[in-house]
């Protein structure tokens, strides 16, 4: 079992590295589109017709995928009193209970997210006239990655793998030394 957990973590290390690039790309696309919108209005006196819609949909994808990415080491914002108060086995148990409850909700997102993605498929979006399913699919897909990455977090907790916390992350970003 532990061997399986280890290989699972290895595989998802790679998957998440990929997601990280997708996230950078989404934010870059949003910046370029809206930046271009401002610029075009200045210079050409006209603006793109699709920039706002495309960047909005990119943002929805960014949020759910980014949340899934953060879930791999339990970085989603939470009230972690229990984690701080408890130690050892009890602390692990608390993390596992919270993780399992979260997974139940993420599965709801996946299943009912597929329902709603299907239900809105006939709608065309105003600017780009693509199917409304394309932005809506962010929820079931993001839900699936949330499940998979929460499992990562649980496995890492069981295996006592050191995980980067949100505070570590903020400090690393400020110092830019550890990267």
């Amino acid at each position, binding site marked *: 079992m532990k061997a399986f957990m280890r290989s699972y973590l290895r595989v998802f290390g790679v998957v998440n590295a990929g997601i990280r690039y997708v996230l950078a790309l989404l934010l870059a696309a*949003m910046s370029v589109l809206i930046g271009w919108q401002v610029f075009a209005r200045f210079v050409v006196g006209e603006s793109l017709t699709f920039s706002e819609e495309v960047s909005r949909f990119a943002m929805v994808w960014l949020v759910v995928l980014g949340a899934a990415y953060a879930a791999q080491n339990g970085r989603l914002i*939470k009230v972690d009193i229990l984690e701080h108060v408890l130690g050892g086995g009890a602390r692990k148990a608390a993390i596992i209970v919270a993780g399992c409850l979260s997974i139940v909700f993420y599965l709801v997102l996946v299943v009912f997210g597929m329902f709603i993605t299907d239900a809105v498929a006939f709608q065309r979006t105003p600017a780009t006239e693509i199917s409304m399913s394309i932005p809506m699919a962010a929820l079931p897909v993001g839900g699936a990655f949330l499940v998979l990455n929460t499992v990562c977090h649980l496995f890492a907790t069981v295996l006592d793998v050191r995980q980067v916390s949100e505070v570590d992350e*903020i400090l690393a970003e400020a110092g830019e030394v550890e990267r």
Partner: protein
Amino acid sequence: MALLVIAALVLLFLGVPIAVAIAGSTTLAVGASGIFGIEVVPQQIFNALNQFPLMAIPFFILAGHLMQVGGISERLIRFGNAIIGHMTGGLAMAAVLTSMFFAAISGSGAATVAAIGSILIPAMLARGYDRGFTAANQSVAGALGVIIPPSIPLILYAVAANVSAGDMFMAGVFPGVIVTLSLLIMAYLVSRKRRYAGIEKATGRELFTAFRKSILALLMPVIVLGGIYGGIFTPTEAAVVAVVYSVIVGFAYRQLSLKKLVDAFADSAVTSAIVMIVIGTAGLFAFYINVLGAPTQLAETMTNLNLGIVGFIILVNVILLIAGMFIEAAAAILIFVPIMLPMATAFGMDPVHFGIIMVVNLSIGLVTPPVGLNLFVAADLTKLSLGRISKAVLPFIGVLIIDLVLISALPQLSLWLPSLVNTAG
């Protein structure tokens, strides 16, 4: 409604992510009520996120991040030290002042603590400042990040309350200055009592050099607010202009590389997602309680209580201070605006002023235990326990509460600036 609240509290206590606590409990309530199908859950999360003005959040996070990578915090600190560092308690006051400058670039409180604190905290400790005071001073100064524009909670409030983000930004300026002044006074008085000496006084030339080297960063809020009120771009677009500007400044300071750029985009995306997933689920929650008609009922109950406007403001502040101890500002704004704003407007309060009260109040939550991101970051930088930091921060919270009373009691502090630019524009 009772099921919803109890389920949310239990989930929160068990340590599931706040987003899951909000959406999971709402899902339970929706399922139990049978008013509509569960597919509403993902649909409403999507709707809450699919809003153009929210895009300012990732853009301001990214801009702050790029500025930081571009080496701007060092430059600002040099400037802050040159202005005020020589006075008694100079470094402590420079931490406050520099945080104010940085707050006007960064959209986030914890990022301000990290950026300024990682440099100034070691410097303060080396000069013999008390560890607890140092940590508390820096984490409270970081709370300025959300009062001084640009600020993510201000944007969120604008979206939730349907008021102009530009007006919220303008309204935050004077309250931000008041909080800054009060913290400067606090740092000075404590330092005088404990005899923390200043650093060497900067010459006129050194001061000018420090100013010149920070000027590009100091100009950022001017460009953002000037652009909005000069009719060049909308508040959301201003955020992307800030991004472009930061990239230019980063390359101008020769601090950016492609690798750093990619990292900044990826890290900012993750930070944004962590904040915004809460926004999505809070939208679902707001939809559900609206369907139940809860805000209207609560507003009626409140009116019948005959509290009067003063009683109402006190009640709101107490509720938010308690809530702010446990949940962070973004979630609190989205949960409480739909409930509290109808009451506030029924009492004749200006929505912009009410928003400033909420944001100042919730910024205090960033430095109150048990959940306060600024405290966690400062604790890490000073290697102090949460317990010791929490004790050290208490007098500062007292000061912030006095500021809060002032800002609540004097609407003109918030409203004068936006009214001025709006009539002039």
